[in-house]
């Protein structure tokens, strides 16, 4: 079992570093750590630090990024024990005593150094029926969805996910139960459960139920605490628990208490 995630350090991110300030960076490489030293710079991000080390000190260091502006979801790592998007995390906000410890994202297999294999994460996205299901005979016309309907609002609350895997790394249930679909996939499923055009709801509710599904969530809230997009997978999962319970009770009722014609 993995150790619980430690509390975040609170440093003022607006403080400018001293001109000659240095940063000690411990990076996990396989079984051990390697230490690097880089200069502190103004508005420096964790991704800046890793890129500087890779370009100036050790070109064999493996890590992953693409957009650098918090859109692609590829740069997440464990920073001082907490999962974070590194392109939008300032060093000044998270460095502890001028030090940083960087590790690959928790709960996923490591490819090399700071790069993890995201495949299990995306496989679960698929397993949770995280894709829109238009049905065999999609309607001819556009569906009218009122922007302020409860369903549309529920979709809006969870739609901005960038697939960064931060929530997945933060979740202890994923660590304890490797089959658990995890907060991101379940959050995605909840946005589709609220999509009135989707034709695959029964199968989706079935897919998100059971020992790998939403009922296994203990409402620890780690996902919601860490999601860099400020989404709340915990509440999406609570919605799935209600929706699956309602549909299971309905099925149970029609099986046992209603006479079929």
């Amino acid at each position, binding site marked *: 079992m993995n150790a619980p995630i430690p509390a975040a350090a609170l440093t003022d991110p607006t403080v400018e570093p001293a001109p000659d300030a240095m940063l000690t960076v411990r990076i996990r490489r396989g079984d051990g750590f390697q230490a690097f030293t880089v200069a502190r710079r103004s508005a420096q991000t964790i991704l800046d630090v890793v890129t500087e080390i890779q370009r100036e000190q050790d070109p064999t260091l493996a890590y992953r990024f693409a957009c650098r502006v918090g859109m692609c979801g590829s740069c997440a790592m464990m920073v001082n024990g907490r999962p974070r998007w590194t392109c939008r995390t300032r060093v000044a906000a998270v460095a502890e005593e001028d030090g940083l410890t960087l590790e690959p994202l928790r709960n996923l297999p490591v490819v090399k150094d700071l790069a993890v294999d995201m495949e299990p994460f995306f496989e679960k996205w698929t397993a949770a029926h995280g894709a829109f299901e238009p049905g065999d005979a999609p309607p001819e016309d556009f569906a009218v969805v009122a922007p302020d309907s409860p369903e549309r609002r529920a979709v809006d609350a969870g739609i901005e996910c960038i697939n960064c895997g931060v929530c997945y790394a933060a979740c202890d249930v994923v660590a304890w*139960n490797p089959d658990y679909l995890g907060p991101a996939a379940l959050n995605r499923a909840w946005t589709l459960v609220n999509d009135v055009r989707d034709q695959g709801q029964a199968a989706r509710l079935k897919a998100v139920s059971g*020992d790998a599904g939403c009922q296994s969530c203990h409402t620890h809230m780690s996902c919601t605490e860490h999601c860099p997009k400020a989404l709340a997978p915990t509440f999406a999962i609570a919605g799935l*628990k209600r929706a699956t319970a309602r549909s299971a009770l309905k099925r149970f009722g029609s099986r046992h208490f209603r006479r079929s014609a």
Partner: protein
Amino acid sequence: MSPLLYVAQRGTAVILAVAVAVHLGTILYAVRGGLTAGEILGRTQGNLAFLVFYGVFVVAAAIHAPIGLRSILREWTSWRGRSLDGAMLGVAALLLVLGLRAALAVYVA
């Protein structure tokens, strides 16, 4: 856990919350001036409301606890499958028998 087990666990949790409160409240109220075993039995004996209340309490606990225990065991050990589910049914049966036996004993005594 399946959605029906989920409903069963949360439903019984509501019953347990009320039952635990009534149970503790009654104890605190009843022993204010000191109470002997004889006096307690004097009040519970033949009291059908007492029997029904603790009967419901025991049934709720016997449903609630094994479902939760199953989740914990699945997370902290590698125990899975039918043997686990069977063992949890066993725990439910044990809680049911021991609990109902205790409630009945105090009712009849």
